[in-house]
């Protein structure tokens, strides 16, 4: 591996970590800017809901475009970087890497589908039956909430890798493992939305929407910040940075020696 491709890999690693923050800003901005968040209540009348969509048609269309540019794409890049860094710095398990890679991609696809459905919902709102418009909105919220199992798996596998004995905390301190466990546990609330049409456990509810929604965004933000700081510690540190102790032999690990990592490493 040449130093040029090493340099590219390092840059992509840093950019990938930053893309988590970009995703959070763009996806969050897209949902809020489009007016689809805060979510409308499922018990809102279809006519009122269709009127809301018609009044905000172009806001929604532009928001969904932003979601597809920054939301879908950057979640993909960030999740791949997370999987790569977890494998490189926390636990070298190939299987864990594959799981993180796959569930991250599925998360990004969900973002993509939300954007496409939102666009379709607003595109012909004048011609559609209001109940159909509301059904499309139900689909968007259900897509956002009810495929929670892979998201929980994503966060739990990340947590287990960080809490495993092979993690020398060069990038991921152990508290991020517990934080990931917390975020993963909260995904379960999403499942409640299919049973309720109003109140805190409906898809617009203070618990069912905001708890997993906010915790997922917080998880991406916190992990991205940790990844960026960790990258700087590893790549901008002294000329011969301490090596990770575990058995990973990545293609760019030529500079890695078998030197003990100081216990004070970590955010």
């Amino acid at each position, binding site marked *: 591996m040449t130093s040029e491709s090493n340099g590219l890999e390092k840059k992509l690693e840093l950019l990938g970590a930053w893309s988590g923050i970009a995703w959070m800003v763009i996806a969050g901005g897209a949902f809020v800017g489009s007016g689809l968040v805060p979510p409308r209540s499922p018990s809102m009348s279809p006519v009122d809901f269709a009127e809301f969509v018609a009044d905000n048609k172009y806001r929604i269309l532009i928001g969904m475009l932003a979601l597809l540019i920054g939301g879908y794409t950057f979640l993909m890049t960030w999740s791949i970087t997370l999987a790569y860094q977890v494998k490189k710095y926390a636990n070298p398990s190939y299987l864990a890497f594959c799981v993180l890679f796959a569930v991250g991609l599925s998360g990004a696809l969900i973002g993509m589908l939300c954007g496409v459905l939102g666009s379709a919902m607003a595109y012909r709102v004048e011609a559609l039956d209001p109940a159909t418009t509301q059904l499309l909105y139900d689909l968007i919220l259900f897509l956002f909430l009810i495929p929670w199992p892979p998201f929980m798996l994503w966060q739990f596998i990340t947590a287990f890798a960080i809490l495993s004995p092979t993690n020398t905390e060069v990038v991921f301190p152990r508290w991020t493992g*517990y934080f990931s466990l*917390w975020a993963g546990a909260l995904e379960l609330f999403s499942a409640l939305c299919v049973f309720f049409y109003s109140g805190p456990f409906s898809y617009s509810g203070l618990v069912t929407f905001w708890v997993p929604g906010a915790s997922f965004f917080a998880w991406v933000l916190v992990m991205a910040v940790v990844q960026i700081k960790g990258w700087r510690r590893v790549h901008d540190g002294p000329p011969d940075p301490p090596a990770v102790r575990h058995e990973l032999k990545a293609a760019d690990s030529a500079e890695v020696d078998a030197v003990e990592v100081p216990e004070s490493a970590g955010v």
Partner: protein
Amino acid sequence: MNPQLMAGITDAERPRDVVNRRRHLPGESGIWIFILLDMLIFAEMFGIFVWYRAENPELFGASQQAVKPVYGLIYTLLLLTSSWCVVLAVRGARRRLFDVSSKLVLWAFGLGAAFVAIKFVEYGAKLSNGITPVTNDFFMFYFVLTLVHLLHACVGLGVLMYMRKQLKALQHSREASERRMRMIETSGVYWHMVDLLWVVLFALFYLRG
């Protein structure tokens, strides 16, 4: 009950690492982050419940009659006793009484498992009487909050088994003893959180206002 667990002993008799641990935060710092954040979410749900109850006191009062306090009392006894066993188990581990600690954790597990089993019996009784999470707002909160706590308790049973595994490992080897002891304390802290959350649920749903 092993008297060494119950009686105090002087610092001169205590191993040095036990003395050093007397004033430390038990368990890993990460578990406290988990607990604080988790309790924040429960606090949110408790707050919403209290607000809904204030909006409709007659409905909530009438519906609460279907929740039998005797169940609450049994759950409280089970979980508090279980937590007491965990406290003694951690204390025993610090004094290297791993065999006793391991048995105490088994007791804690058994009491926790009894909690889970009786909870299913209670749910079954309500469901067979036609009371479901969509019956009204009170039961929506009752089922959701107690179910979320129940899931925490089920995870806690797994954590207790992990705790026992660490105790067994320490019993046979001194390898990674500091890390294992930290994980034992961490596991205990999690179980105490389950217990503490139960106390609030008991007060909200099982005590008559």
